[in-house]
């Protein structure tokens, strides 16, 4: 990849988005865990649960600050680096971002201040309400961001308007209830819950190994293990749903994840292991499990999943159809306000869905209509994403997902048997598992977004056509600026996290509050 403006803009977006997502999953999950812990405190009146809420809340705050700071970068960057994208799809894509701010981020950001500053200013139930508002706000935030992202993967409810030269919304309900967005939302927030659960579990395991803060650590582990188990199962179920939906909406992404070069007779086999070779179009040393891919991808035994080579041929046809639409569009535009011939109108309406495919040719020729057959073949080849990257990212992510289920089952059983501190080896595994959810989460985004290439909006707008007309050196400068600033911040953040964990909870010496109900027996 030579360092052109497209590559640099993509690099900057990838860096800032992956960095932002280092902080988001912990915010999503820890907010809910804090709300659960504080609910137990309010219901039982046991002070240790308040102490737990404050302790994990302190770590939450360190993480939250950078999440907020880097979130604004994401929102501004569409306009800064992707101005043609912003013009082309702002009519649809902008709405969920604005709704996110109104419905979710205001709630989260307004109440997070009360969470930290309101302990002495609010009643118990009042403070609990603030905590739940933070949890609700952060999760609703994720909903709207994934509605926006889901539309990039599966652009429903919209149509191209030749007069304004952009996509415009035709059915907003379809955009909101986009099945891809809904599956992605649950998959992503569940992944956040797993991240927070593994974090709480790992830090608590470290306390048990050191023999410190035992009461706090055991209770935290119990909450984290059961919450983490439910979430880890949800991640896999909804991940499977996302995969199933890809069969419908993003066939190329699915084929690339599977390194499935040729269409196989149904039901297709799943490749567990192998070395995909993009040049040779084959997977070396592949280990297959028969039937599994067909079952996961189509939930049937007789539906074929198209392979990469077949999809490239299919892309060629769509490019040709797109060229018809492109030509009709030029005629409609040059006609201005005068009416065009019905044949031209019909040509645009019939082929308009493939207009985006003709834009893939812009990389090779200024006027796509002048493209040679060879250029059309090259553009069709471009629709294949980087197969080895997707193949491996996906497998590591799924492997980690299964590991989290095993981990959470183990600790749920240990907790039920009151044996959390009986097996030091398991505790050590929990400590070393702390970074793993972050790896899985980042790889998830690699699969989702790298797998969407060469499209910024699947089938509608190629990434290369979406960038701003900026100088490469300008963008290189801001990349260096972001990397420098972000590196300093993460070093400081990690330092403060480690100090926070080492310091442990603040002593809470206030007398036990009165139980609000004598029916509820506090857990020991």
């Amino acid at each position, binding site marked *: 990849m030579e360092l052109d403006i497209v590559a640099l803009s993509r690099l900057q977006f990838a860096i800032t988005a992956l960095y932002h997502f280092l902080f988001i999953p912990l915010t999503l999950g820890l907010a809910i865990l804090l709300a659960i812990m504080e609910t137990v405190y309010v219901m039982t009146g046991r002070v240790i649960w308040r102490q737990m809420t404050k302790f994990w809340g302190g770590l939450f705050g360190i993480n939250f600050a950078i999440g907020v700071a880097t979130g604004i970068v994401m*929102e501004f960057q569409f306009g800064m680096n992707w101005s043609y994208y912003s013009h082309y799809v702002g*009519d649809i894509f*902008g709405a969920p971002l604005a709704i996110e701010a109104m419905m979710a981020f205001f709630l989260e950001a307004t109440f997070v*201040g009360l969470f930290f*500053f309101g302990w002495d200013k609010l009643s118990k139930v009042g403070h609990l309400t603030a905590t739940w508002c933070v949890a609700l706000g952060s999760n609703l935030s994720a909903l709207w961001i994934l509605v926006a992202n889901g539309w990039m993967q599966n652009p429903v409810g919209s149509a191209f308007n030749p007069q304004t030269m952009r996509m415009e919304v035709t059915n907003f309900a379809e955009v909101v209830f986009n099945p891809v967005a809904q599956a992605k939302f649950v998959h992503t927030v569940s992944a956040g819950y797993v991240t927070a659960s593994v974090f709480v579990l790992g830090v608590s395991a470290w306390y048990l190994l050191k023999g410190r803060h035992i009461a706090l650590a055991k209770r935290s582990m119990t909450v984290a293990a059961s919450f983490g188990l439910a979430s880890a199962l949800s991640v896999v179920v909804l991940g499977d749903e996302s995969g199933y939906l890809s069969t419908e909406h993003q066939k190329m992404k699915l084929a690339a994840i599977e390194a499935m070069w040729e269409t196989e007779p149904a039901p297709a086999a799943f490749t567990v292991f192998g070395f995909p070779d993009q040049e040779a179009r084959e997977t070396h040393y592949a280990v297959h499990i028969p039937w599994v891919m067909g079952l996961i991808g189509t939930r049937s035994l007789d539906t074929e999943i198209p392979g990469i080579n077949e999809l490239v041929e299919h892309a060629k046809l769509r490019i040709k159809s797109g060229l018809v639409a492109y030509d009709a569009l030029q005629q409609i535009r040059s006609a201005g306000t005068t009416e065009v011939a019905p044949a031209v109108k019909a040509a645009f309406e019939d082929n308009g869905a493939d207009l985006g495919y003709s834009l893939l040719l812009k990389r090779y020729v200024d006027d796509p209509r002048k493209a040679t057959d060879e250029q059309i073949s090259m553009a069709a080849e471009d629709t294949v994403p980087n197969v080895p990257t997707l193949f491996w990212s996906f497998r590591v992510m799924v492997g980690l997902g299964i590991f989290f289920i095993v981990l959470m089952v183990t600790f749920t059983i240990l907790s039920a048997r009151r044996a959390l501190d009986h097996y030091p080896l398991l505790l050590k595994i929990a400590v070393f598992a702390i970074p793993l959810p972050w790896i899985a989460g980042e790889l998830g985004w690699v699969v989702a977004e790298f797998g969407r290439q060469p499209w910024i909006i699947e089938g509608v707008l190629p990434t290369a056509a979406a960038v701003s007309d900026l100088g490469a050196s300008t963008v290189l400068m801001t990349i260096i600026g972001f990397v420098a600033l972000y590196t300093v911040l993460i070093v400081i953040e990690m330092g403060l996290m480690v100090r926070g964990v080492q310091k442990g909870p603040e002593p809470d010496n206030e007398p036990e509050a009165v139980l609000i109900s004598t029916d509820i027996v506090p857990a020991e």
Partner: protein
Amino acid sequence: MILHQLIDYEILRLIWWVLLGVLLVGFAVTGGFDLGTGALLPFVAKTDVERRVVINTSGPVWEGNQVWLVLAGGAIFAAWPPLYAVSFSGFYLAMFAILVALILRPVGFKYRSKRDSAAWKSGWDWALFIGGFVPALIFGVAIGNVLQGVSFHLNSDLRIFYDGTTLFELLNPYALLCGLLSVSMLVMHGAGWLQLKTDGAIADRARAFGSIAAVLTIVLFALGGIGLWLFVDGYGFTSAIVTDGPSNPLAKTVARGTGIWFNNYGLYPWMMVAPILGFVGAVGAFAGLRAKWERTTMLWSALSITGIISTVGLSMFPFILPSSVDPKSSLTVWDASSSHMTLFIMLVVAVIFVPIILAYTTWVYHVLWGKVDVVAIRDETGHSY
């Protein structure tokens, strides 16, 4: 879905133009006082305890305040996509500087008191100063450039090209004047906040600096008006105005000339209310700071901010982002909006949620009402920064 036909496209565009102003004023009035507080931090607070008192005045609320900016960004994207696309990429390096400053702010608030080292704390104090001063300055500089027109043009695909918008071109004298006006107006407002939330030396210093800022606001606002009359070309339609046509800026023709930015005040004399509010509010804030009107000073400074921002919008109406090199590419209220349906949907969402936001924000400010407790800060109790 045909519900959106209930409100004319023209009216929706007008409503969203007003809402754009409401959001910018919302950010300047809420986020503005903590930017102003940040810019005042090194000057009004000398000791560590004093600095922590200042930081804790806005500590619990700045996050919510900043969402007004996030919402303004999102709403511009949703309701005025071409404006979002042209301004954010056209002011690329300026936006980058704002982002860096805004990134320093949350971490500054959160991390400053996590360690005892003096160097650590003083480093974050400077970060908070930059996080307040730099965005205040750049937002003003950007507005100053918008008033003069930005050098961009659109091709027939509506792709945006910039014709030499370098960072240095943006830092021209008129834009810098607007930048200083923005800083002084937010410092005036921040001082109003500090005298409300603190006592003693800090409040006294805030009043002193705030009074200077109020005077500067009056002077710079007047100079800005004179400069606009004498040196800045306005823009006007030379083709018939179509208010409900498709959002394609290239369908019109535009001419530029001196004094055009003042035409609206002749056509609609009621618009004079905005600049008058700008002055009267600042005079009221000055009087409030001198006479120690603890509770009402901020109302006056908020009024001044509302007047000054509205003056910019009203002077330019219906233009929202003129192009200096290719005037017909200029973005206006009538040709740079989202589709009829999107504007309608977003209006429904705003009508439902903005009152809810205002309600719980008011409640939170009510809970946090009162001066920052210096004793609690000194003893490090009560979860303060």
